[in-house]
């Protein structure tokens, strides 16, 4: 199975090679979409993890045991659908196709499983209804 997460690194956890452990110790395939890691600062890493469900569970438990926060991607993306006018401007910049207009209804649809939290949609939405935050 595949699951997408955002890892948040408190400043004292930046030195832990989390990705390496997930690959070597838990046999997981990882795909990094978005990363901000700088010594002395809080960092974040958005990634997709692929492997057996049990291995993903164990791997995420390991990450958390090291003080790194690991949350599913959807916890970090907020779309103000109540105010959305379904213009489609956000779909223009969504490389992975997570934001699409339905072929018939022309209403906006968001598929979090395809989101890479690239944040391009946050600038493209003319009503500023999309928020992506790596800080809880």
């Amino acid at each position, binding site marked *: 199975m595949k699951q997408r997460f955002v890892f948040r690194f408190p400043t004292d956890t930046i030195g832990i090679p989390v990705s390496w452990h997930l690959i070597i110790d838990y046999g997981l395939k990882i795909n990094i979409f978005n990363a901000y890691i700088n010594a002395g600062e809080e960092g974040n890493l958005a990634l997709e993890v692929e492997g057996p469900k049990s291995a993903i569970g164990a791997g995420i438990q390991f990450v958390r045991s090291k003080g790194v926060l690991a949350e599913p991607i959807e916890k970090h993306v907020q779309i103000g659908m109540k105010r959305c*006018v*379904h*213009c*489609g*401007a956000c*779909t*223009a*910049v969504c*490389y992975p196709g997570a934001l*699409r*207009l339905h*072929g018939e*209804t*022309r*209403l906006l649809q968001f598929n979090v499983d395809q989101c890479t939290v690239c944040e*391009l949609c946050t*600038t*493209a939405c*003319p*009503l*500023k209804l999309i928020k992506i935050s790596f800080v809880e």
Partner: protein
Amino acid sequence: MSKTVEEINRKIRTGKAVVLTAEEFKKLGNYESAASLAAKVDVVTTATFGPMCSSGAFINFGHASPGIRMEKILLNGVPAYGGIAAVDAYIGATETAHPADVYGGAHVIEDLVSGREVRLQASGKGTDCYPATEADVTLSLNDVNEAYLFNPRNAYQNYGAATNSENEKKYTYMGVLLPKFGNINYSTSGELSPLLNDPWLRFTGIGTRIFLCGATGYVAWSGTQCHLNRHRNARGIPLHPAATLAVTGNLKEMSPEFIRAAYFEKYGVSLFVGIGIPYPVLDADAAHDLLIRNRDIETEVHDYGKADHPWLATVNYEQLLSGEIELYGKKTRTAPLSSISKARQIAELLKKNISEGNFTLTEKIQDLPGSDSLNGLSTKKGARQ
């Protein structure tokens, strides 16, 4: 056999008019001829809901005691034009206090329409007849005298699509354009769009009654840059941005459902405006024009990566709405800025209003006084000396 607008209005008043949205009408066109449809259908409703920068509102604030000649005016910190009578102002949709602000005139208008209070700060030099020099109050739409939208250019009859050949993203009024032809953005509601259903402006002119942002509005004049002599395809559709409308309507009757402030990143503030126009199906010619489909509407793709936006390709709306177009051998994502779902909502609402006898059709008072050409602006020093 042809009908008159008055005959159709009589049917509307007695609840007997057959009213369809443009999409419903076009579907029937798959099975029936234009002549047959003209005999059966009386009115077809069209609509659009998109960002239209050339918009704004006139407001009369009423006189204070002692009075003030308002010479500098701010609404929620956004400058409004006060160079008209003492307590009249025009708040332009794209106006902001500072160039990079994300809150502007459109947001002030949306706040007012939504019933929210707005801070008015005004100053004047003080005159014998208007001695006060300052005013600082909060007010709502209920507190002012007149407040009416007057949009100098809305409802473009066709508009070009935009892409970007450069290596960097471009932030434009056509949305964010990704590098190296990463997307193509377009902005009309295609076969639902009002003026594309009346390509020769047979029914749209000065005095045409319309749906404007939830209120009943009117076409006041041709819009700015109204070009009536564009090249047309075999179906009569202009291939370039052509006719435009100046429209007006009572801000106090509008709904925040159909008027929304927008901010385009690194470009500025704009206003989503909802417009619906009903067309009388007087005869087979009118029905023929109303049967245009997305495949009949062609538009040009321009490269906004280059300063003069050169032509790259001509495409049709069926292709644009499909979600991708092949450009230079590569599949390119297409995306709208104009909301089809909102346009459908407006077309349905207008249909309901007409069917219930609450909205009758008008005959235009005069053709739009547009132009057969467009002047550019030469910015070369001394060019006009």
